[in-house]
């Protein structure tokens, strides 16, 4: 089997040695916050204050209070600081700053998204003029088709992000109610819980109702495609909001689907123009394309740092920041450029200083598959408890090609193909769909490139595209001498796999297969199954 050189941290960790003591089996939150040494604790404290200011500013607006009491999922946002603590557990120095810089920005973005939803929501803010310029899109949707619209005039509302996706990170139980609603209405319990929960939210009437139109996508999976039908029915038939289904070919590596995909993008743009009354602007598009390219370069640079013995930007923060930037932003917001630059500078600084975030790195892991929302701190735990360093995750291995970013007549046609390519190669589906090569071969290439000896394989049990290749992963990993550690879960339903049931799969693998002892035994079993 392949082995990698162990990297030992020669520096003493600032503050308390182990974050294991901050958990409590009597509370649904942590007993206290982590002591990270004076400098890092103070930094973390200031970021906590910042978060409170963001949340405080939000709740000062009367319509947001109204929305808070109208929508069950808003309960999750009581626990945003608790959620943020999951992203920083055990972190110090640059990694702590990277996690805060990236995820504080994401939180501010989501908070703004909720505020926007409430502003236009017919039941809450009911700002009709605003709502008439809003376009609803899916949570798992690239918004490339909005790149050429003025974001101050046409508002892209990814209403499923705050409602389901993000809220589940802060409160692990919040989705269960909606899953129950969906199942009570006849959807079986074996489909992916994410589109199922979204369908449940729609059935329960717990989505904000706004917008002049909606654009739906089939980007992730059969479940997502099918769940959209239920959501669209309510939007169209009850609320009179026209929907457009942006069909995105699955075999995205085949050149013979590109023209169709490009045509779908054109149709989506025309649909948005028709319903918002706003015009597509090529200057705006190419400016956004430049930003997309910049983000791509930064992501590649971050991955290059992670391919060294001293990775800096890793774990859930890396993955979720990339999701937000690549998919939810798609170059539309210039603010991301500043954040990208800051993150890269911090990572370079950490790399130069050879910063490490555990006592030692014993294994270099590629994280493949889809991470469960409710154990978002898993990868930080894995490195600190077992010394397994997550170098890159499947959701962050996205497009690395530059798109046309100069405004020429030829590039205007190319632009549709670029948008189509990005749309087809949305996070996750660029590996889970499009043939087995993008799922299997890409993984082994990445292992080689990043010098990984282990694959931590998230087996999202309802994700048929992934589980359908289970045996092939096993066989091909064996042929290549790469350890494959299966970790099963059910994405956002903690009743199926609790947090400890998930972590125990790693514990068992490390003890029985790898014959290793934990770096930090106090972390092996954390009493957080009942915590939010």
């Amino acid at each position, binding site marked *: 089997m392949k082995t990698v050189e162990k990297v030992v941290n020669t520096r003493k960790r600032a503050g308390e040695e182990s974050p294991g003591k901050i958990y409590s089996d009597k509370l649904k939150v942590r007993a206290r916050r982590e002591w990270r040494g004076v400098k890092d604790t103070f930094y973390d404290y200031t970021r906590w204050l910042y978060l409170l200011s963001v949340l405080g500013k939000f709740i000062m607006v009367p319509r947001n209070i109204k929305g808070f009491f109208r929508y069950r999922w808003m309960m999750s946002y009581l626990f945003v600081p608790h959620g943020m603590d999951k992203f920083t557990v055990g972190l110090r120095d640059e990694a702590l700053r990277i996690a805060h810089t990236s995820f504080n920005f994401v939180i501010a973005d989501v908070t703004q998204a909720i505020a926007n939803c409430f502003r236009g929501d017919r039941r809450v803010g009911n700002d009709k003029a605003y709502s008439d310029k809003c376009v609803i899109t899916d949570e798992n949707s690239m918004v490339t088709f909005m790149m050429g619209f003025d974001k101050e005039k046409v508002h892209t509302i990814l209403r499923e992000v705050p409602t389901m996706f993000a809220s589940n990170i802060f409160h692990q139980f919040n989705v269960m109610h909606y899953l129950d609603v969906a199942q009570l209405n006849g959807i079986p319990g074996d489909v992916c819980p994410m589109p199922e929960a979204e369908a449940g939210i729609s059935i329960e009437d717990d989505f904000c109702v706004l917008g002049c139109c909606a654009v739906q996508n089939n980007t992730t999976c059969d479940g997502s495609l099918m769940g959209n039908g239920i959501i669209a029915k309510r939007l169209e038939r009850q609320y009179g909001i026209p929907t457009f289904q942006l069909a995105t070919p699955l*075999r995205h590596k085949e050149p013979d689907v590109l023209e169709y995909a490009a045509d779908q993008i054109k149709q989506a743009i025309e649909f948005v123009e028709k319903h918002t009354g706003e015009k597509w602007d090529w200057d705006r598009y190419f400016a956004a394309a430049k930003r997309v390219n910049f983000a791509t370069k930064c992501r590649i640079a971050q991955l290059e740092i992670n391919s060294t013995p001293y990775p800096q930007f890793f774990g859930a923060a890396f993955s979720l920041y990339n999701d937000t930037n690549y998919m939810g932003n798609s170059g539309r917001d210039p603010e991301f450029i500043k954040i990208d630059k800051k993150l890269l500078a911090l990572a370079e600084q950490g790399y130069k200083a050879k910063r490490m975030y555990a006592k030692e790195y014993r294994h270099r892991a590629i994280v493949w598959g889809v991470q469960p929302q409710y154990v978002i701190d898993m990868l930080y735990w894995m490195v600190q408890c077992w010394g397994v360093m997550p170098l890159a995750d499947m959701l962050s291995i996205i497009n690395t090609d530059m798109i046309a970013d100069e405004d020429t007549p030829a590039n205007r046609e190319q632009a549709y193909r670029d948008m189509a390519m990005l749309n087809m190669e949305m996070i996750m589906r660029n590996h889970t769909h499009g043939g*087995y090569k993008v799922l299997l071969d890409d993984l082994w290439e990445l292992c080689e490139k990043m010098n990984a000896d282990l694959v931590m394989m998230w087996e999202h049990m309802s994700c048929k595209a992934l589980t*359908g290749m289970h045996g092939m992963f096993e066989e091909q990993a064996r042929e290549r001498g790469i350890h494959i550690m299966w970790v099963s879960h059910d994405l956002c339903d903690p009743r199926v796999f609790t947090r400890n049931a998930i972590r125990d799969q790693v514990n068992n693998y490390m003890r029985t297969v790898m014959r290793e002892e934990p770096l930090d035994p106090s972390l092996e079993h954390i009493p957080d199954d009942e915590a939010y």
Partner: protein
Amino acid sequence: MRDLKHLLYFENLLQEANNELIARAREEGKVCVAYTCENVPEPLLNLPGCFSVRLHAPHTGSMDIATYYMTNLLCEPSRALLERAVEGGFNFSDCVITPDGCTMMNRCVENMELLHTMGKDNPNFFHEYMEIAFKNSETDVKLSVLQCTNHVLKPLHEKYGIDVSDAAIRQAVADHNRLCRVIRAIGDFRKGDKPRITGYEFHILTLASYVCPKHLIIDKLEETLEELKTREPDEKPWRARVLLVGSEVDDSGFVKLIEECGAFVCADRFCFGSLPGRTEIALTDGEDALTQVCRHYIRSCQCPRMMNQEKVYSRKQYVADLAKEYGAEGIIYQQVKFCDPWAYERMLGSSMLQHDYGYPVLSVDRPYNIASAGGQMRTRVQAFVESIEIKKIQKGGKA
């Protein structure tokens, strides 16, 4: 009713995937094109010189090997097919053409390819994967034409020298239409109070038309049609007439089980059923045949994967229209367990057909081989039949 003359013959053909007619057609020098999804235009797989066989796995028992490769969370049809392929049950195939329709079936065929389950001694053997349309627009027709050209016609021509000309396609469509006419004419005997064919018998004939070389069964199907014209229907009325909707039914035992409970399966709206699978393709001279075939498949497609809302609603309207045409008193929405597309379609369809169209609906999931859950299913169907009868009594009709 008197037994149909050829029923046993057709039943025997369904006992194994590698039926005797496949061997005979191959001996004739024809190329065997295996496929797994109804969205592949069937006439293109039946051009002169080749014949299509829809893969199925009768009498599936253990699926241990397939479960290792695909886990027990994938739908049973996909695992059953992989298991059969690993066992060598599909070695008659000269190629496999599959669309990236539903993820699980696509993964099933990909596993077949990676495990080299077929074509070991055939250097021309190939696997092809197609993108299929999501909507019923002309753009989707264009996509379908391109996909069929690149992933069906080209490889068949290049590997096996199959004639893929317009004339050849027209010939294949004419043969296809002949088969469709017969099946639909037979299916029409299910209409009316005293049907001359049972749902089970019809299912056997329809399934055979997908899994056998068509040119070798057409004469017997036509003979069966003639026989039905004079067949005396049973006097004893059925307790209820039901329309069966949902994912593929490869196990005729399921239809038999329903009918044993007293419910006549008067129409079949499931994958690889006759509605709309056995609808004639009308060709005109003004346009190339390939485009017209693709358009036909896109327009008539009732696959839940079609995502535009017009299609979403029209699928339910189609079911309601069939229920009216075939005199169904209830609808059974069924889904093979773990099938994602039909899981959602079943939920929305059963709700709309019940609330918007006023039909009693039974919504169930089931295994691939009904024998493993026969008891539970029988109880559900019996209860459903009784509920239909009670409704009839409440409306003042005869039970």
